[in-house]
């Protein structure tokens, strides 16, 4: 059995009095964790309340462009529903229109479209999205681009809402 002479010097650098220290029992830890569980549930409920109450009103219809303003395979930038929301209108080779938010769902860079391409590309981190439905095809993004609902009214293209 080691005697006082064998006591290493480093022990004096850690003056912990184990006999005076407080140990946490299993029951105390269970109570503490349950309290934390209640707090987490409360924060989650608050987040849900904030999210539901902050739902934006339906976006009003707004004219985007004329049907002939976009050539097949081309694109057009516009703002919808406010002047601070950049969007992109695409027309595929068959003449069908689709529009999406231009804000990348990864880190909010502006996605771009190259004429004739089937994908929208984010130049920041090489993310790409389908030009048909906005779903992510590659790179860091995991959520699809919000889709702008487009209606054809006579010779005009009209945005009627946003589908997140």
């Amino acid at each position, binding site marked *: 059995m080691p005697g006082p002479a064998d006591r290493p010097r480093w022990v004096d650098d850690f003056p912990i009095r184990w006999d005076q220290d407080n140990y946490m029992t299993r029951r105390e830890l*269970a109570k503490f964790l349950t309290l934390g569980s*209640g707090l987490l*549930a409360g924060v989650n409920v608050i987040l849900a309340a904030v*999210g539901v109450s902050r739902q*934006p009103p339906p976006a009003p219809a707004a004219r985007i462009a004329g049907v002939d303003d976009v050539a097949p395979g081309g694109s057009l930038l516009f703002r919808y529903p406010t002047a601070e929301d950049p969007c992109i209108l695409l027309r595929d080779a068959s003449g069908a229109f689709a529009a999406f938010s231009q804000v990348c769902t990864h880190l909010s860079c502006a996605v771009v479209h190259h004429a004739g391409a089937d994908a929208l590309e984010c130049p920041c981190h090489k993310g790409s999205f389908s030009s048909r439905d906005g779903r992510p095809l590659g790179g860091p993004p995991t959520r699809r681009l919000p889709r702008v609902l487009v209606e054809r009214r006579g010779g005009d293209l009209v945005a009627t809402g946003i589908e997140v």
Partner: protein
Amino acid sequence: METRQQGLTLFSAILVLIATLVVIQLWLLAASVDALLAGQAVVLVPTAAASCVLFALSAGLLWYVVSFDERLKQWGPRG
């Protein structure tokens, strides 16, 4: 296995279970914050409900431990 050892195992298992539920709640909270910032409010209510259910499970397990202790106190120490 003697009864005391069984009790220790049981309470340790309950503690681990509660800790696991809290970790799942943390994951739900991270998902909620992500959905809130992305404007996907439809995700928020189910995650809040799931978090409340997990809290109810944790509270139920804790209630079991506390009621167990209360029953033990009624009987008093072995004498």
